[in-house]
């Protein structure tokens, strides 16, 4: 029998999901995408449920995407944005969460600078915890929307060559994508300067290279990761200019991939650093599709977690 529900109460990371659970999320997102194409983009599914978006890091893209997804499912949403600086002098994450928990939310969507923050909350909260990015650990809904976008364009994930290029060391998007793509049978290549390659990647079933031409050769999908300016200051590479000339995605490099390659980026993009504008805005780019699909995928996640077998009902 086909899987109809997730086996977990929380979405802490792709690491916890089985391949059939991932496919369930993607299939459910297919249906959710249709809701977003209607004139009235709203269904009553989560009426009366409260979802708290608890963001300890600034995020426009992910937070608005979750908020739209929640509103389309008719959940009552509450945005709590806490600057990290006030946490230092103020209450702990656990205290903040327990205070919010007292308001009986069904779900807490958490973005936090520390890896494992969602695991910590999942041990103390009754609400389902949805990881919206925890430090350098995981960003599972980003990987799910990336997979959804690839599947939408290519019809499948298994057997595709996916090249991921950029800051592999600090990227939660990388970890979630590697876990997801390898679980669904894609051939994943990762590429970065040697200073930005974490240990243990080969054990995760990916091919590691520092030569971008090798990574993109014959690729079906090129996924770019954001390079943050502070990495240069941290001495990981000498200059943004040198990074772009050595690793930046240019039209010449894209030409080495398959003719129907798609170019992805989780955003926000640094034009002229990791990706040339002609590529970001070009015919192969699906960057804006990713944004649109993010809402459908997050609706699917919220729906599946709300209906999960273990979910406590909050009256």
């Amino acid at each position, binding site marked *: 029998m086909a899987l109809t529900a997730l086996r977990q109460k929380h979405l802490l990371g792709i*690491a916890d999901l089985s391949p059939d659970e991932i496919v369930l999320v993607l299939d459910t997102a297919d249906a959710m995408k249709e809701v977003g194409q209607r004139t009235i983009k709203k269904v009553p599914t989560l009426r009366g449920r409260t979802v708290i978006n608890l963001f300890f890091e600034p995020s426009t893209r992910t937070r608005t995407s979750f908020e739209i997804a929640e509103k389309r499912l008719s959940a009552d949403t509450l945005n709590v944005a806490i600057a990290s600086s006030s946490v230092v002098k103020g209450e*702990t994450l656990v205290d903040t969460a327990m205070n919010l928990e007292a308001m009986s939310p069904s779900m807490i969507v958490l973005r936090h*600078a*520390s*890896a*494992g*923050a969602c695991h*910590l909350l999942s041990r103390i909260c009754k609400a389902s915890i949805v990881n919206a990015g925890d430090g350098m650990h995981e960003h599972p809904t980003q990987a799910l929307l990336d997979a959804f976008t690839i599947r939408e364009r290519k019809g499948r994930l298994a057997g595709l060559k996916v090249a991921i290029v950029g800051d592999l060391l600090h990227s939660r998007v990388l970890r979630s994508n590697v876990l997801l793509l390898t679980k669904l049978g894609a051939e994943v290549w990762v590429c970065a300067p040697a200073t930005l390659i974490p240990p*243990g*990647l080969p054990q995760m079933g990916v091919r590691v290279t520092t030569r971008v031409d090798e990574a993109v050769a014959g690729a079906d999908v090129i996924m770019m990761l954001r390079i943050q300016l502070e990495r240069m200051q941290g001495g990981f590479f000498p200059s943004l200019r040198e990074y772009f000339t050595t690793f930046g995605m240019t039209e010449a490099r894209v030409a080495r991939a398959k003719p129907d390659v798609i170019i992805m980026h989780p955003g926000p993009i640094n034009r002229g650093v990791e990706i040339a504008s002609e590529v970001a805005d070009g015919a192969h780019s699906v960057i804006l599709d990713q944004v649109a699909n993010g809402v459908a995928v997050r609706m699917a996640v919220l729906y599946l977690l709300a209906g999960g077998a273990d979910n406590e009902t909050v009256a």
Partner: protein
Amino acid sequence: MKRLLKGGRVVDPANGRDGIFDVLIDGDRIAEVGASLSADGAEVMPVAGLVICPGFIDMHVHLREPGQEHKETVATGTAAAVAGGFTAVACMPNTRPVNDNAGVTQLILQKAADANLARVYPIGAVSRGQKGEELADIAELKAAGCVAVTDDGLPVATAILARRALEYTSMFDMPMIEHCEDPSLKGDGVAHEGPVAASLGLRGIPGAAEAITAGRDILLAEMTGGHVHIAHMSAWTTIEAVRQGKSRGVKVTCEVCPHHFTLTDDMLAAPIAYDTNTKMNPPLRAARDRDAMIAGIADGTVDAIATDHAPHHYDEKNVEFDRAPFGIVGLETAVSITLDRLVHTGVITLSRMVELMSVNPSRILHVPGGSLAAGAVADITILAPDLQVTIDKTRLVSKSKNTPYHGWSFTGGVAATIVGGRTVYSNPAVKLT
């Protein structure tokens, strides 16, 4: 008053003894050790089936007083020590204020005298305020009762400061104890750099960060003739550096903590992901590193087992992994872990365990103990080698409960702890009638 410990197995490598003997205590001294001693006029303690050892000395403990009494005090820390079978502890200077002057040293010793449980040997700071700039008043610290110096919690900041400290301490027969860590390589790391940290998204601390500083200090000890003691080794490369140093005749000694010869960084992921009770510095490392610690213990490279007992309050550990302080409590688990994982598995003998936990710490720190010779101070640890022990953090004597071993079962434990002829701890689970 006389007491006779009758019929136990006496393991006293300093005097070449391992067999069934009686131990006669007179006042605070050992009067005689021999077969079938007369009980005449003595209170008899039947200890058949138990193991009588010279008192265990934990040469790496954080008692947190003064300044962080919510984590531990000298009184609670020494109560935990005797419950864990330690008759003496050496306490680290990273208190608030730092133990870099005679005033703090005397305060600690006064608190220890008030508690009157385990002996306490303060360790002074290498540098004033542990700031790594200028030497602390080491002669003053020595006169006040300090037995070693260290900037533990931090490495001795520069090679030149380490050189001066090694030269200076050599005048007083004090070791310089080094917390080996290259600050630039450690960065803001929180876990062993490897696949586990990478998959958890935790910033890494490579083993080389430790070995580099160990290598530096071993070269400086060789150059100056000073004595460096490498604390809490965790990386296989560090133990390799010590082994090479020893083979060249350098005055280098070293210690390993029980968690580094039992656990690996896999513990960070499971059974409880991001459990802050698996966060310590140096971090739990890979299986290769753990196995190197066991090999070093077995082949004699390692001189001492010390706990790095680092109590932290529940609230301080109930936070994000990044934000949690490093360290775990260790005083009350070390003996059971060592018996279960090293002695019962045949890695070492009981005699070697006594060397690691009593004879060598006494020798390294130049403090009394390590021997059950007639006339020696009657500091005795009595082991129940077959006792079944299940660690329950809620029942720890220490003020803090931050242990990764909660719920673990071990074979072997402490039966009783005798300090200066006085029984300061006896385990209710062991009958001593």
